[in-house]
């Protein structure tokens, strides 16, 4: 695997859209060619090299390309946009759309990632060591096809609206989450190790949520369904089981209605 390191040298006055910073876009290019890739600051299009020092050549394909992003990229959007393979490490914090629409590969953000990280993710792995913003692993506006595969791990807290319209894959948040978890979800698994606020699983059709901490207000559409011993992400514990959202439509499997499941650690 070849490693390309890009280091912020001239931070943008506004915000930078760097949707070409992905193993896919870098693959097969030399450092000089990578520096010529387009970036956008508002309505001005210029090159990656204007803002970043680029060192190292990329591998022949995305699979054997690793990118390390150094320096202050708090105002850089779209890192890892649509990446399908390879690796991307952001050493600090980054702005909106980290790993959005990614289909494969591994992305690591060592700081925080703002909203819309892993929008409509289909595969791969995104790890955020700090906090995630709103709409983590959610669908794009208007689309009923949300995150369908892959895995997201947030070591800090996450914002609101995580896993909206989720269809598959897994989201783990070690800390707390804000309101709205898995709204309209029809599949997938979300594990919240900290606390949730309210509106957890609203309008959920199918899928599973685990909450280790507290939930301030339960959705009335989630009906108590007993207690159960489970092992979740390596933790064995007793959980209160709820099914829902009873107000929402549900599919039938072998004559049985399939509800979404919410497990709250007791």
């Amino acid at each position: 695997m070849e490693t390309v390191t890009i280091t912020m040298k001239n931070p943008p006055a506004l915000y930078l859209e760097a949707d070409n910073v992905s193993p896919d876009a870098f693959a097969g290019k030399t450092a000089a060619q990578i520096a010529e890739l387009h970036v956008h600051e508002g309505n001005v299009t210029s090159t990656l090299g204007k803002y970043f020092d680029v060192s190292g050549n990329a591998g022949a394909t995305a699979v054997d390309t690793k990118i390390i992003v150094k320096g202050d990229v708090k105002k850089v959007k779209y890192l890892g946009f649509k990446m399908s393979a390879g690796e991307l490490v952001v050493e600090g914090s980054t702005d909106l759309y980290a790993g959005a629409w990614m289909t494969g590969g591994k992305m690591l953000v060592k700081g925080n990632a703002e909203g819309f990280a892993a929008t409509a993710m289909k595969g791969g792995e995104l790890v955020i060591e700090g906090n995630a913003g709103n709409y983590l692993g959610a669908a794009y506006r208007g689309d009923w096809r949300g995150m369908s595969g892959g895995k997201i791990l947030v070591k800090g807290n996450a914002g609101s609206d995580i896993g909206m319209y989720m269809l598959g894959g897994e989201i783990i948040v070690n800390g707390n989450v804000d309101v709205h978890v898995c709204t309209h979800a029809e599949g997938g698994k979300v594990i919240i190790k900290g606390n949730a606020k309210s509106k957890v699983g609203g309008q959920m059709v199918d899928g599973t949520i685990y909450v280790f901490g507290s939930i301030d207000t339960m959705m009335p559409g989630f009906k108590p369904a007993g207690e159960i011993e489970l092992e979740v992400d390596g933790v064995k514990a007793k959980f209160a089981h709820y099914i829902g959202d009873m107000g929402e439509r549900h599919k039938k499997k072998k004559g049985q209605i399939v509800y979404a499941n919410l497990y709250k650690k007791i």
Partner: protein
Amino acid sequence: MTKTVTDVICPFCGTLCDDLEVVVSDDGKQLLEVYNACVIGTEKFLHSQSKDRVTRPRMHQPDGTWKEISYDEAAEYTAQMLAKAKKPLMFGWSSTNCEAQSVGNEIAEITRACCDNTAATCHGTSLIAIQDIGLPSCTLGEIKNRADRVIFWGCNPAHAHPRHMSRYSIFPRGFFTGKGQMSRKLIVVDPRVTDTAKMADVHLQVEQGKDYELFDALRVAFKGEWLPDFVAGIPKEKIREVADMMKSGRFGIIFFGMGVTQSLGKNHNIDAAIAVTKDLNEYTKFSIMPMRGHYNVTGSGEVFGWQFGFPYAVDLTRGFARYNPGDTSTIDLLVRGEVDAMFTIGSDPGAHFPISAVKQFAHIPSVCIDPHLTPTSGVSKLHVPVAFNGVECGGNCYRMDNVPIDCRKVVEPPEGMLTDEQFLIKVRDRVKQLKGAA
């Protein structure tokens, strides 16, 4: 001698009453009386006649005073500002006509601006919900003619849309509703005991921020499933009673306002309200409608819609249209410090935005186009007063139910004043030169 102009459209709120009568002087220069309008609408017409009205563009000077300039100079400043900016924001559009909006969109396209309307602070969340789940709706005449179940959720038309109830929703006797108010059940959902709530057959005093839960509980109640004893402070028996009342009507309507679009839950509240409406169509006929505020905020969404494909929060900076509220929406753009020029027309963000957003105005060049003196015009570098839309010039507008009505010109604007559209055409033509556009 005086003249009476009939069928005048009121350029105040989204109710867009079109039955006003306005008495004007024989020379058509003075507006004397307004009939049929509500207090707010009347005031809006009469305000155009105030003697201290600013009639020429003004530049803010370093010492805080204003210097009068010509419209050409104002257009030059505006064009230069927009053409030089990397990410200009063109905000407002809700109190102007569709013709002006259309010219504004051309400018935004040439300068690759972000453009947004006042949905940003009222029903943008409704639009997000509509994108997620749809919108079973109808025109206001349908409610007048058919509705026997009327729900006001998080809105107070008695104050915000004063003639709504008499024209469309509660009092009128329509084709199938010959008994007027007697043929309708009124349900109001509001944490406060508003004047609208006082008229209701049932007032659900929902706990603040728990509308989403209450909508969900109604959906559960429609299906006759298990409910906790209390939801959002309302006992489950009451919820079941209201659910039955909704199901037993022949034609129902949910009107909702900012009490539910901008409180905790935001777009999800509306999403759930629409889900309630959809569910009810399994049992009877039900519709839902946002109580849009500005008289032509709906029109702005329509024009953005057919020209760019999105109803608000449109980002053209990359040369093509993009949309994602949270990223491309005005308050986020301002608070995050994403834009470097601020153009406001037909709205007053200075009065309605969070202070952290308004503070950004101070750091960037700004232009405000507005017939009134407002907090926004006060903090902008350039204020361009214009003719009053719907009073001093006509133009198309869209009512809260998306029905288009062409506004009427009632009186002449003060000598030499331009309309929004005329001023924007000057700016567009100059911007075209500056950008070398086709």
